[in-house]
């Protein structure tokens, strides 16, 4: 099941040229761009691993593209996303976040039901991938 998280996720995967121009747009706005990866694609997992520190004061997308390539090389079978952080006072949050790499095989999510007292049912979502220990998921 194809993971749909972040901007552009219902579109076909972006090409490198498209990623580059998206980053270019972010830099024009003065946002700080960072690269993150994870192997736990749960929608509530907001804390992905940082690949290097966020890049401030960059003028050109080439530097970030290299960081993306570097991350793909180091973690060939993970989810990788690019975040753009707007540090303007009063905003101070992510403006844009999109996937730039995904594992070859995405097993999707399992819906868990838990019986509570009084016929109450609690639902949970769990990625099939997270059944295996970290480092062996994809």
């Amino acid at each position, binding site marked *: 099941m194809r993971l749909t998280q972040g901007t552009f996720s219902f579109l076909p995967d972006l090409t490198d040229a498209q990623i580059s121009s998206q980053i270019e747009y972010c830099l024009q706005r003065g946002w700080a761009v960072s690269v993150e990866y994870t192997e736990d694609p749960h929608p509530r997992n907001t804390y992905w691993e940082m690949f*290097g520190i966020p*890049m401030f004061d*960059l*003028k*050109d997308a*080439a530097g*970030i593209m*290299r*960081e993306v390539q570097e991350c793909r090389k180091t973690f060939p079978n993970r989810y990788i996303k690019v975040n753009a952080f707007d540090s303007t006072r009063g905003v101070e949050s992510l403006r844009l976040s999109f996937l730039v790499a995904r594992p070859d095989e995405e097993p999707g999510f399992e819906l868990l039901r838990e019986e509570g007292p009084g016929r109450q049912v609690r639902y949970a979502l769990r990625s099939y991938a997270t059944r295996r220990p970290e480092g062996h998921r994809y």
Partner: protein
Amino acid sequence: MNSVLKQTADDGAHDASFNLETAFRDSHVADVLEKLEAELVGLAPVKTRIRDICSLLLVDTLRRQAGLSTEALSLHMSFTGNPGTGKTTVAMRMAEILHHLGYVRKGHLVAVTRDDLVGQYIGHTAPKTREVLKRAMGGVLFIDEAYYLYRPENERDYGQEAIEILLQEMENHRDDLVVILAGYEDRMERFFRSNPGMSSRIAHHIAFPDYTSEELMAIAQLMLEQMQYVLSADAQSTLREYIARRQTQPHFANARSVRNALDRARLRQASRLFAKRGASLAKQDLMTIEAEDIRASRVFAEPAPVETQRQGELQT
């Protein structure tokens, strides 16, 4: 140049003719070159080299239009010259020129020294250097006093690591950034001799000559114009004399010395005006630097060597 162009036009699949003049006009290089000519006095070899590079890049643009191969040109440069000969200023212009010619995408200048590249402990240098390189991408990386990167007396110095990363990037990412190394002539020479890899990767070694006293005079005029001051007729000849004397003294730093001299003259002018603060002042009085403002300099006192040292400009 024209015959070559004509030939390619004849040979090329496109029969369109290629006009260097239009390309030149479109690139807005003319404005930058004009500014260079107007704001930089002297420096003939530097200007010639810049013009050469401009022509080559323009011809390359046309070649690309004609479908001819354009080998990515290596534009890493080294600027050598005595203090105050305009290395930093030219580097800044260079970023602008290369941007107008479409060689670098953004045209910003990232000026760094050893401190920005070299780390303080093992494993600190590489990320630090890469960080700087990332910031410089799409523009020009200007490394001032580059010879400090290499410290032969300390074999565990991390500078060597920074040099290696730089070399690698200069080779692999030619289209992403231009590196300019700058420094004093003799020390740069020693630096290149001990780092032959660096020397061979730099295509353009540009030497900045010292200014003649006439050129220094012109520079002074330009500076005063920018600061909105004028020299009285007397002051002009005094300044000429000052420059001639200062040139023979140690720690002479070309245009920087002139700037400092003018700054000190401004101070003296201010105290002269302040001393007779009862009198009303005209705008002209506020603008004019008199001969006595320059004459008060220690340079005219035929100072002892110790004094000259104090007078001498500190290099930063």
